[in-house]
């Protein structure tokens, strides 16, 4: 074997690892019934490939080769571990048989395994933070270190979260399956929540120095695209559209120095037209299904913003209409606040302020900095400077994120001058 073959195979394997390792893993988990066994088996299969492919050439169907090699490596492992235990023989036989019955893994079967993996990682009986960590680890293939870094926690803490989640899947017997038709809407909701949480953490980091962490948003969009291929439900399209439309504004949302720029002050020529076109097409497709939900409506709102060439030419009536629909579908004080801002743009600041004050008077959103900063801005526009100052100060006291704090401080200073 010459040096160039060896390097060539290594490169081919690197590519296959990037594109196929999650599919191989998803199938091995089904065949072997356990996350850790499957992960070990997959890595064994890749290292076996490095040796054998150099000698025998790259097989016609590398993925099938890897699944099959992984399965036999796992059976060997279990045999070795349980040399003197006969109790596991039926289990080994079962794995072997399941494997033998398995036809050449076809495309559809493989894609089912990926859906199984997603639904298992996002099972509602797992802790919300564990769902996110497990999905990024198993479905996206991020390392524990990468995930820990993205969520500003330590690798040991994150590793423990993943270990416990896998233990629960095994011990409480969370099945490796796509939910039944009856359960699908509820379970899909949890999956979409996980993806949106990952996106939001990347788009508007909950704490820390930088306003956004783009890696996580990319990962969430990748997940959204994958889910759209596997399960093109209207809300899956809606969530993907929402993420793409938000993403289209990323470079306009912050100044090079990392300062926040509000929607109406953004340089709209910086918006990514390609992402807007893709997102808008998805919104239309989802809306025409007549079975859309809150993600699609939020995406539709983002699409109305995207098509306006300037803040002043935005179709605010359309936006208020969409928010009213959204409020009926998922009543929440945060949606009400957003609707109030749209009303202020359509009917004038005092109309919006009235709604915000009624939300706060109910005791809702009193600890939400954006409620106070929206109130402050409307007061400022109405010339009620003292009230504006008090609300900005309240918002500042509640804001966690550094760029957000700098933004509020600047607004406060401007008020004084």
């Amino acid at each position: 074997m010459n040096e160039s073959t060896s390097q060539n195979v290594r490169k081919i394997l690197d590519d296959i690892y990037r594109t196929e390792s999650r599919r191989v893993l998803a199938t091995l988990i089904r065949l072997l019934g356990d996350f850790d066994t499957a992960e070990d088996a997959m890595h064994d299969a890749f290292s076996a490939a490095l040796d054998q492919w150099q000698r025998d050439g790259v097989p016609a169907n590398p993925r099938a080769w890897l699944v099959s090699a992984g399965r036999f490596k796992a059976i060997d492992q279990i045999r070795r571990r349980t040399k003197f235990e006969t109790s596991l023989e039926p289990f080994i036989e079962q794995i072997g048989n399941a494997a033998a019955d398995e036809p050449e893994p076809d495309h559809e079967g493989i894609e089912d395994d990926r859906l199984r993996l997603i639904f298992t990682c996002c099972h509602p009986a797992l802790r919300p933070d564990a769902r996110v960590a497990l999905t990024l680890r198993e479905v996206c293939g991020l390392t524990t270190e990468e995930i820990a870094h993205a969520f500003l926690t330590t690798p040991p803490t994150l590793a423990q979260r993943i270990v416990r989640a896998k233990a629960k899947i095994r011990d409480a017997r969370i099945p490796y399956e796509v939910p039944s038709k009856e359960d699908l809407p509820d379970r899909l909701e949890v999956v979409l929540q996980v993806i949106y949480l990952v996106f939001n953490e990347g788009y508007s980091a909950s704490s820390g120095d930088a306003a956004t962490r783009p890696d996580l948003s990319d990962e969430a969009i990748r997940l959204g695209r994958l889910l759209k291929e596997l399960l093109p439900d209207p809300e899956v399209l809606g969530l993907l559209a929402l993420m793409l439309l938000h993403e289209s504004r990323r470079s306009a949302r912050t100044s090079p120095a990392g300062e926040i720029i509000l929607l109406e002050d953004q340089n709209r020529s910086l918006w990514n037209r390609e992402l807007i076109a893709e997102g808008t097409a998805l919104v239309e497709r989802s809306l025409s299904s007549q079975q859309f939900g809150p993600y699609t409506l939020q995406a539709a709102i983002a699409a109305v913003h995207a098509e306006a060439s300037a803040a002043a030419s935005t179709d605010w009536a359309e936006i208020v209409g969409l928010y009213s629909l959204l409020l009926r579908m998922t009543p929440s004080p945060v949606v009400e606040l957003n609707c109030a801002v749209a009303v202020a743009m359509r009917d004038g600041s005092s109309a919006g302020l009235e709604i915000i004050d009624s939300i706060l008077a109910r005791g809702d959103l009193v600890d939400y900095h954006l409620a106070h900063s929206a109130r402050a801005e409307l007061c400022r526009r109405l010339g009620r400077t003292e009230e504006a100052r008090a609300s900005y100060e309240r918002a500042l006291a509640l804001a966690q994120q550094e760029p957000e704090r700098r933004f509020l401080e600047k607004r406060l200073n401007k008020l004084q001058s």
Partner: protein
Amino acid sequence: MKYICLGYIDEKVWEKMSQNEQNAFMDRCFSYDDELKKSGCFANGEALQGARNAATLRWKNGRVSVTDGPFAETKEQLGGIMVLEANDLNHAIQLMSKHPSLSMGGGCWEIRPTADLSAMVQESEARRRTREERIL
């Protein structure tokens, strides 16, 4: 009469014990369970996996919502249940007071007399029968 005994433990106390301590503790518990079985007082029992493996179902906005974790996030969690056959509550208290698991500390046994629902079941059956007859 049957008493359901709910055994609560502080999982942290258990995790802090050494392997030897855990073994000695379990040996004491099991040998007392054997005594209860011999005297016909141990009707049934099951140990539970850790509370973090729990799932909780609730009725929320007109549908079932599934969440992770135990019902209450408290220090003590349900670790096992025993169905005790005892003459009366005092007898049940007597029997469970001697259970070595109490010595671990941080936990407790909650003794709950079983309720007799047989009359309720009969009435319900009658109601459901009537309904079926009406359909016919």
